[in-house]
């Protein structure tokens, strides 16, 4: 709610917005002459941005938590599977050659990257975290190399928009972006919410899950597809928001413990809210907007190192 009142537009001071909101609710006709401007700032710029930021943060946090649970490793997130570099390449490709919408292209290549990592790592119908991370690194490397090629051949103007995209781009949120992302995110997150207790079972290990009566390979695939769908949709509209899907699940676990029955829904709420708070900072802290991806990366990196030192959990386990 607070986010509605914050922003670089001088014309819309919090007081003005409150006044017009009050008028709107009480059914009064617009009294202030700049009502239309206010309405446009609040409803066409800020509101879609707030909603988009919220579902993006929620989707990334829930996907991160799910992926950490099924791979039994608290240092993983959706980007580790090559999602971010795949999506960045897709977006850049579409910006440079303009044959399909940027968002769609980012979505397709994000999914493609995760799919490639998954099938490269798959062996004897099951999948190990080490091979998954290694194939994720390979796939990321390939797409990053291809991205560099595109950046190299692009003209400076396109290059600038590509760079902007990869830093997270919630600033050009609009209703159509919200519309196109909300359905896949809703589907992905709903599946993850349904499977949230299964994640507790899967976190016990494969043998333990099998002998307790569920098929871990099938359930992991369902959860991985749902998490990829939600996070790729988020990345496609919002750009790369680094380390977010890794950090939020940890903060939630510190607050309420590891039981996914509670932590999956809370990840969505907290992930959404926290990204809004960061976004508010990124658009108010200086005269120009600091890209949100830069913000989360700078906050996230020290946190990641702290976790790595503290948890003693290596990739292999």
């Amino acid at each position, binding site marked *: 709610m607070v986010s509605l009142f914050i922003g670089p537009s001088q014309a819309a001071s919090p007081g003005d917005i409150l006044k017009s909101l009050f008028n709107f609710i009480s059914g009064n006709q617009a009294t202030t002459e700049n009502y239309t401007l206010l309405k446009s700032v609040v409803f066409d710029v800020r509101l879609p941005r707030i909603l988009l930021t919220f579902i993006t943060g929620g989707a990334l946090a829930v996907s991160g938590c799910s992926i950490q*649970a099924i791979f*039994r*490793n*608290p240092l993983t997130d959706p980007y580790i599977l090559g999602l971010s570099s795949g999506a960045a390449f897709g977006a850049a490709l579409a910006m440079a050659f303009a044959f399909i919408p940027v968002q769609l292209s980012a979505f397709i290549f994000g999914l493609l990257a995760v799919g490639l990592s998954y099938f490269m790592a798959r062996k004897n119908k099951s999948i190990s975290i080490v091979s998954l991370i290694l194939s994720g690194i390979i796939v990321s490397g390939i797409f990053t190399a291809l991205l560099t090629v595109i950046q190299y051949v692009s003209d400076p103007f396109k290059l600038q928009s590509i760079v902007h995209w990869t830093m997270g781009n919630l600033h050009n949120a609009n209703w159509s972006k919200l519309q196109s992302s909300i359905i896949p995110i809703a589907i992905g997150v709903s599946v993850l919410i*349904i*499977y*949230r*207790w*299964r994640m*507790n*079972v899967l*976190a*016990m*290990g494969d*043998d*333990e*899950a*099998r*002998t*307790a*009566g*569920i*098929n871990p390979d099938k359930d992991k695939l369902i959860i991985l597809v749902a998490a990829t769908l939600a996070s790729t949709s988020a990345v496609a509209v919002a750009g790369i928001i680094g380390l977010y899907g890794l950090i939020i699940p940890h903060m939630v*676990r510190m607050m309420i*413990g*590891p*039981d996914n*029955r509670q932590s999956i829904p809370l990840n969505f709420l907290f992930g959404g809210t926290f990204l809004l708070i960061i976004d508010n900072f990124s658009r108010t802290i200086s005269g120009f907007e600091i890209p949100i991806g830069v913000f989360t990366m700078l906050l996230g990196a020290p946190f990641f190192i702290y976790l790595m030192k503290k948890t003693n*959990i290596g990739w292999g*386990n």
Partner: protein
Amino acid sequence: MKAIQVHNLGFFYKNVCVLDNVNADIETGKLTFILGKNGSGKSTFLRILAGLLPYQKGDIHILGNDNSKLNYTERSKIVGFLNQQHKAVFPFSVEEVVLTGRAGYVSYIPKEIDKQAAKLAIEKVGITHLANRNYTELSGGEQQLVMIARVLAQNPKVLLLDEPTSHLDFSNQAHLLSLLKKLANEGLTIVAVLHDPNLAFLYGDDFLFVRDKQVIRSATSADAWNVDFLKTIYHGNLEAIPYNGRALLVPYMN
């Protein structure tokens, strides 16, 4: 009555024969130990019974059900399995860990009946005082008891354990084996792979030995104490030291 019937079982790992033409019966409501050398295939045998390894030849019936035709959910209501060592990553509470044993009964979210079953299993193992503790903060012995409660929560008729005492100290070994003995006396069929023949002979009702790709039953329980027989199992030197009317087996020192 036979709980498990194994007929002409053959198992190959990457074209290497591990078990060949194995025939074995396991009695209902008894505590049966499987003994043998490292790498003899005793854990493999147990994992095959647990439905974790597909076998190539023969057939296995568990309480009349063809083991190869059961899916995970169906099998979980008949057979419980406890791995050698369980490594936890997330600090789940003991209650949450035990509740995951109910996965075969739960569609997506556990209900009150599942929570009751978990609570009952915790009581049965005698760790009610640990119920709200974090699993990761417990000692090895306590963790093993939690995992036993977890497997009991799934109400199996047959319980399979792979070296349940291997990471436990002396007193915890005794505590755990007494618990297994008690559960067997209450009617549960228990099959456990064990390293230490002394412990096995102290607590077990029945013994199976794995040697040369075969599973052998000792003809009589007296055989279990027969040093010459045991030498063929462990391919090595061991001797029996008389002690209070029993014998203690020790590795023979040159």
